[in-house]
Structures are given as C-alpha cells and as structure tokens.
C-alpha cells in the first residue's frame, strides 16, 4: 500500500470526515435508520449513521438487530440503492405550452446536486459502473443522470459483514472496492481499537484525505483490511455459478422452471425497484386545468407490469412466466450482449425484498441442474 494515500482515523476523529465533506460543499448521503430499516438519506453527522445496528437478511426477510459493539457500518445493503439519487424515481422531462395554435417545448431544469455518497459498497460501485454504461455509454447521454453523476464524490466502504443474501464474490464485484471511488474506508474493530482505514483513489480523495486528522497507515493496518475483507468474502450468504450463464439461459427459454417460479411470483415489481442496475422507465403526461400547458415526466417502470410490453394495448409478455423470464434472462444473459457485463452485481436485494422469497441464485441453480428440460 502507498502510505501517502492512506490514513487511519480513530472513532473519535471520524466526525472530521463529515466536516471536511460539508466544508467542500457536499450534501452527504449515506446509511441511516428509518422505519426499522437501513436506508440511504441525507446525513447531518456521524450520529445519523446506524450506530450499533446490523441487519438480518434472508429470502423475503429483513429486520434490524442490535450489535454487541458500536460499529458504524456493521450491516449489509438495504432496500435503497444509489440509483434513487442518480436515476430518480421520477424526473420531469419538459413542459410544453400551447400558444396561438403553436407548441413551445421547454426542457425541465436539471437539479444542481453535489453529493458525497458515504458508504457505497463494492457491489454498489459495480452497479453504478453498469448504469454509467446504460445512461452515458450507450449511444445517447442521459442528461439527468449525467448531471447527478458528474459531481458525486464517492466515499466507498469495504464491507465488514456479508448479508444473508449477498453473493458479490460469485459475481466478481466485491467485497473489496478496487476502483470507482475517491476514498475507500474500512472499519476496524478489534483488540480494543475502533478505527477507520481510509485510502484515496483519486486526486479529489487525496485532497480530502489531507484535510483529515489521524495517523498514517502502516502494514498492520493493511493486514487488518485484508483480514476483514477476506472474512466477509468467506461468509457470503449465497453463491451463484455464472459459468456459461448467458448460453445456459438462452438455451433454456422453454425450461419448465419458468412456469414453476411464475406460480410463486406475484409480479409485484419489488425486485426491479430494489435492483441497483434495473433502468427501465416509462413516460407520463399531464395537462394543466386551463389546458394551455402540459408536462411530460419519466418514472421508473418494471418489466413485471402487464402494460410494460403492451403493443397496441395488448401485452406481448402476457404471463408472469414471460415476465420473470424476461427479467432474469435480461439481467443475467442479454445484459452481456447489450453492455458487456452481467446486469447482476450480487447485492442480494431482489432476494431479500421478494415478498415470497424467490431467490435468483436458486432459480439459476435449478435451471442448471436440469439444463435442456422442456415443458
């Protein structure tokens, strides 16, 4: 490790990170407890973090639980992802005024944001990288996404615990943050010490690091980080075999498992809403009461809704089977053709937040186990 780009802050010094980010004009977004869940919201200071909390996650199951220590980051991801800030659930596109029989289109203002994302995990950096390719590297640039994304300062986090539905190791996205951050921190709680090892990954991170107190890191700190990441990697709640997965799914579009999973799936769209890479959207129009102006906005949509595929009012994907198959084959197979990577980062949110506990890793395993079966 390069000692110049590293610092170790004591728990008592950690508030200085908030001060430094605030001083640079950033709005700090990070994990906080709300309605018995850890969500991403604006943080005023260290005290807003879920101090001493952890989460218990299983398929269709999420609850908070007290930790035995006062860790700041002792939990996995919740139902929120950074997507809600970079690709907001609703976005105004334009206003159109009708004046003397002519239309005047006025693009909506793009909010001027300057976010610092505190506690973005490796899987989430991967998810943001995937959405970068969707919204910035896919031929056309999405101005809303671009405006939000451009000024984000990324304070990433090496996970100290793995959730019950995590499988980032299988997807090759974590738990160690390797790129895409300005600063990365690792929380170290051992032998009576409670510290944070910070490493910069950019010039902005380097500048910020210089503003912070703390001591320079040494080899033992690096070893502690390695140990923590290794322990997290070894305690993944799930795993998924992705060897040849694109071909596996393309070759099994008529596999009986789709009918089976469809008999459980409620088509509720939860998995697509919590997924940090799902990017589908629809448009909505509204007219003012005087009839002289109208607005057009964009909102998240889901391939699980019946009208998502409607062609002249008739859905192409008429059954839950069609829609589940679309979602999973898009996520795990056609995404490679479209964007050069999997659309899944192994965060486990779709498993945890599925009301009936459908587990994408289990579905892949079931198809793999009976590859080639026909209805």
């Amino acid at each position: 490790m390069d000692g110049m780009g590293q610092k170790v802050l004591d728990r008592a010094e950690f508030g200085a990170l908030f001060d430094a980010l605030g001083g640079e004009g950033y709005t700090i977004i990070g994990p906080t407890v709300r309605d018995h869940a850890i969500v991403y919201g604006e943080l005023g200071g260290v005290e807003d973090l879920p101090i001493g909390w952890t989460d218990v996650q299983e398929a269709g199951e999420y609850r908070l639980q007290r930790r035995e220590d006062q860790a700041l980051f002792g939990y996995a991801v919740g139902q929120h992802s950074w997507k809600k800030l970079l690709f907001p659930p609703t976005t105004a596109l334009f206003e159109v005024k009708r004046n003397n029989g002519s239309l005047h289109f006025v693009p909506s203002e793009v909010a001027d944001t300057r976010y610092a994302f505190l506690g973005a995990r490796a899987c989430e950096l991967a998810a943001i990288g995937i959405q970068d390719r969707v919204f910035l590297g896919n031929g056309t640039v999405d101005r809303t996404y671009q405006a939000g994304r451009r000024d984000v300062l990324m304070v990433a986090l090496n996970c100290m615990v793995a959730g019950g539905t995590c499988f980032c190791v299988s997807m090759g996205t974590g738990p160690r943050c390797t790129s895409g951050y300005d600063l990365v921190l690792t929380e170290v709680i051992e032998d009576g010490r409670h510290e944070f090892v910070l490493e910069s990954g950019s010039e902005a991170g380097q500048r910020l690091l210089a503003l912070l107190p703390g001591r320079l890191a040494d080899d033992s700190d690096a070893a502690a980080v390695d140990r923590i990441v290794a322990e997290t990697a070894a305690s993944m709640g799930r795993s998924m075999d992705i060897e040849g997965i694109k071909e596996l799914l393309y070759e099994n579009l008529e596999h009986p498992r789709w009918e089976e999973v469809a008999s459980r799936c409620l088509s509720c769209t939860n998995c697509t809403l919590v997924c940090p890479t799902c990017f589908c959207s629809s448009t909505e129009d509204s007219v003012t009461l005087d009839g002289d102006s109208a607005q057009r906005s964009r909102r998240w949509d889901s391939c699980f809704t019946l009208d998502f595929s409607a062609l002249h009012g008739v859905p192409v994907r008429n059954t839950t089977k069609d829609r589940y198959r679309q979602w999973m084959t898009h996520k795990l197979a056609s995404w490679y053709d479209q964007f050069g990577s999997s659309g899944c980062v192994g965060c486990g949110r779709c498993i945890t937040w599925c009301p009936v506990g459908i587990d994408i890793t289990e579905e892949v395993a079931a198809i793999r186990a009976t590859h080639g079966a026909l209805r």
Partner: protein
Amino acid sequence: MMFPPTAVAARDVIEPMLPRPFRVSARRVETADTVTLEMEPDDGQGLAFTPGQFTMIYVFGIGEVPLSISGNPQDPSTLVHTVRSVGAVTRAIVGLEVGDPIGVRGPYGAGWPVGRAEGHDVVVVAGGIGLAPLRPVIYAMLANRERFGAVSLVYGSRTPADLLFGDELHIWRSRFDLEVEVTVDRSDEQWFGDVGMVTGLLPRISFDPANTVAMLCGPEIMMKVVARELETRGLAPDDIHVSLERNMKCAIAFCGHCQFGPDFLCRDGPVVPYSHVAQRLTVTGL
C-alpha cells in the same frame, strides 16, 4: 478518473427527449381507420431520414408513439406518416386536422438495407399497414432504378377497402420496371384482383434467389411465413429483412420497453435480418 470520459465529452448533448414543433400541412384518408399526414417543421429544418426509420410523435397532453415514416426520403422537407387508429395516441393523431401542431423526435432506428440491395433483385412483401414503412424504399429504388435488378412488390390486404396508397399502387402497376402483385384475404363484388395469402403470389414474381434482397413488413406471423417461404425458394436468411414492432417509450435505448432478447428494437431495429431473429420469433411471450 471517476467519471467516464465519454460522458464528459458529450456534456452539451442536445435534449434527446425534447420534441420539435411541427404542424400538419396535409391530411389524406386512406381507409376507414387510417390516414396519411404530412407535417412541416415550424423552424423549416427538414427531417432527413433513411427508409424504415421512425419518429416519436407527441400529441399535446396525450402522449407519444413511435411511427414509421411513410414519405419520400428524397424530400425531407415534409415529414409523412401513415397512421392507423389503434390506441389513445394514434386515435388523436388520426383525428388531427391541417394546421394542428404536434411534436416530433427523431428519426430513429436502423432502416431497410437499401444500399446493400443495390445490384440485386429486390422482393418487397408488405401486409396491411406494413406497406407504409416500405413505401420510402419503393421511392428510394424508383429514384435510382438503374442501380437495382428486378424489383417487385407483393402486397396483401384484409379487404379491397383496406388497401393503402390506391392511386400510387395504380401508377406503380403501370410501370414496366416494377412488378406489383396485390392480393386480399376477402374479396368483394368490386374486386377483380387476386385473393389469397401473399405467399401464393411469390411463384409469380421473378427474382434470382442467389442474388436477391427481401424486405418484409407486416404482422409478425405473416413475416415469419413469408421468410420461410423465401428460404424454401433459395434466399439466404441473411438476405431477408423484417421490421419488428414493440412498445417504445424513449426511442434511445433507455426505457427498456422495446427489448427483444438482446436487441433494443428502437436502436438495433426496427429492421433486422431475419437470420438474427428467426429463432426468437418462435418463442411465445419473449
């Protein structure tokens, strides 16, 4: 380093979701539920397009739909669409009158392989409203007729009353350098033309299967059946092109609605080689 460099370069991109104001300049009733509209841009800046491309047409306060361009690519000053009333937005478009304003985005998508067809025989097969997206191809080929081999149009319609572009069909039929065959599923008392499916007319037209490009547009089942028939007659699946239709909200590969397997049909289509999609076209609910 944090931010993808491609995005920084494209910082001042024009608004991809913002329509341009146009106005209906002519309206012609084609059938009981279909009209052809000519539209002109408020700013006088024409909309150049290649045959097979589509635009997103926005009707004030109601919504936006993708519509294939049915006009002449040689004359981009006027945007022409042939629209069938099949939903809330298309119903509103069909009801527009001369002078009414609309919004237009585009053109979008991959069109017909007109350039690739040069030096080849060309077989154009249209079904129902599917003739509209193919009309620009006919215009393009007639404008440079010497660049193509034998050119034929086979057009199937539900009834004689559902035929589009009647006057033009008549003119095209009278040309010696264009073979036109028209058939209907159900005849009426005034109809003296052919009755039956378009595939029944394929044996009548002349083309060299080893040197032919086919372009098909119509209901998916019709395109599949015609493509298989052309394959049987010796055309390579790579030389058969079909135009596919799916729900579209953005036309710029963001909204996800038009996905068909790995393809965003708004960008990778709507025109695709049959070979590329033949297998997918047999899967229900994809």
